[in-house]
């Protein structure tokens, strides 16, 4: 790693929604995250790219608390959340989606999103009234599905939904937690290229208040939707910058086109 990481850019007067400081993690002797410092300003549309095994998903796991770091800090809206459990982070407004569908296969889309809304509203412990009695929660769930064009499929069992719609449901479940920061792990993974636009149109249609970080391999998509790109190689930030800067960076070209780093 010859190229030094750029210092975090000046983000003007925008508040930092999510930040990591000197975040490090290793599996045994294998470092998978090295001294990672990221600042996501509120409303950001940041892309996280890097070759396979660069530690992109690991970074999301660290941020969301599914993995515990060996060192470093994670700050959500300025608060240190490093020691909080995953569900506590979700309740504070940090949600994620999964690269491999992690859905409720036996529930239909309406039930699944209603469950998430019920959890957020603190209703999920109530066992004395039928779900049908919580009209507002149901309406909210349906509205999320409708916005993602899943309204007509909401009574279909998840496992029977077409794959592309399952990818949208991944996003719907995360949105139902009403996140401030949303981390999307390859939202269009496995979707045929001609259909992946649909998934990213949905992502592009999300509220401007929502802070987004997404992992994506398709450079066309990255250049189109990201305002800022972070390049991760070997568990460390290789470089970061605007799409134009990244496109012009010979180091990034070498990483991607030259000797690819695996591991």
């Amino acid at each position, binding site marked *: 790693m010859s190229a030094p990481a750029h210092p975090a850019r000046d983000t003007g007067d925008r508040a930092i929604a999510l930040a990591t400081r000197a975040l490090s993690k290793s599996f045994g002797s294998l470092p998978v995250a090295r001294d990672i410092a990221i600042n996501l300003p509120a409303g950001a549309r940041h892309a996280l790219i890097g070759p396979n095994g660069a530690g992109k998903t690991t970074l999301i796991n660290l941020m*969301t*608390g*599914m993995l515990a770091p060996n060192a470093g800090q994670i700050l959500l809206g300025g608060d240190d959340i490093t020691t909080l*459990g*995953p*569900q506590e982070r*979700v*309740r504070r407004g940090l*949600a*994620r989606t*999964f690269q491999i569908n*992690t*859905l*409720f*296969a*036996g*529930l239909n889309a*309406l*039930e*699944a999103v*209603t*469950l*998430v809304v*019920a*959890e*957020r509203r603190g*209703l*999920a*412990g*109530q*066992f*004395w*009234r*039928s*779900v*049908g*009695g*919580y*009209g507002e*929660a*149901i*309406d909210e*769930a*349906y509205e999320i599905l409708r916005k993602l064009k899943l309204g007509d499929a*909401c*009574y*279909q069992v998840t496992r029977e939904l077409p794959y592309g719609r399952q990818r949208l449901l991944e996003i719907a*479940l*995360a949105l*139902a*937690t009403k996140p401030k920061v949303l981390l999307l792990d390859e939202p269009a993974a496995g979707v045929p290229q001609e259909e992946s636009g649909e998934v990213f149109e949905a992502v592009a249609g999300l509220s401007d208040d929502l802070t987004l970080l997404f992992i994506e391999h398709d450079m066309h998509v990255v250049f189109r939707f990201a305002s800022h790109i972070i390049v991760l190689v070997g568990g460390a930030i290789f470089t970061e910058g605007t799409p134009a800067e990244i496109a012009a960076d010979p180091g990034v070209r070498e990483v991607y086109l030259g000797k690819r780093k695996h591991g």
Partner: protein
Amino acid sequence: MTTEAATLTPRGYLQAQNRWHPLEIAFWLATLLPFVLFPDYLSLASQIAITALFALSLDIILGYAGIVSLGHAAFFGIGAYTAGLISKFGWGEPLSGLILAAALAGLVGFAASFIISRFRHFTLIMITLGLGLLAFEAANRAHWLTGGSDGLQGVSIWPVLGIFKFDLYGYTAYAYSLAALFVVFLAGRRLINSPFGLALRGIRENWVRMPAIGADSRAHIRKAYTIAAAIAGLAGAVLAQTTESVSLESISFQRSADVLVMLVLGGAGRLYGGLVGAVIFMIARDQFSGIAPQFWYFWIGVLLVTVVMVLPNGILGGLSHFYARWKRK
């Protein structure tokens, strides 16, 4: 269901899930038949109702939340011994006995749930098996209290509501067991259709996703386990009261295994799975043991293997599958 759903609003769709199906009403009316048609089988009928209640409690944790248990008889036994002992020491009033037994079993379940909620799958099978064996040996060892392998004697239950005496023919026993089953079933039906029931299904369907939607799965499991333990205790108490005795068998591994078999036969994760499973299992046991008293488990084995191979979602799962196909035509 999909054709009806197209015309429904999302609210209407979820409200409709709570509505009674005509088959359900038919099922509950049929439970009254033994009074008229099989008065000689009333004691079997009350055994079935008690076992169904026990299976219902396992269904809440295993069928809905996907939490395996091989030691569920521990709570059944705690309920049975509690009800039996209360009566032996002078308080024979049945309804308060039931409530106390359920409360104590629920309390023990709550304590155990802090261990249970931390584990899954194979580990959990071993832990629940171990806890079940522990409870059995504790009851066996405490001969002075439980009567050990001789069983608890001297249980005497007062008339229900001060009116209905437990008669020799088993009319009161069956009515009492059936009433307990029905009341708990109504509560269980609510629970399953509630947001909490939805969360339990979420845990079963995807354990990994639950924290990522902000859900505290362990808290849900603790709650479900406590409720299931209380219901199991209630079932045990009904058995103790209607038979006016408690045997070591009520807390045995055999009972834990049997209830699991029933649930799988009937269809786990379905409201009526445990009920139908209990009916089939108990009647099969009654009939098979008539044919060959010592080898009746052989036929239960055949039944279990056949059902699991042919109908992986149990008998009810299979039936609803065929029903859905038939309706689509």
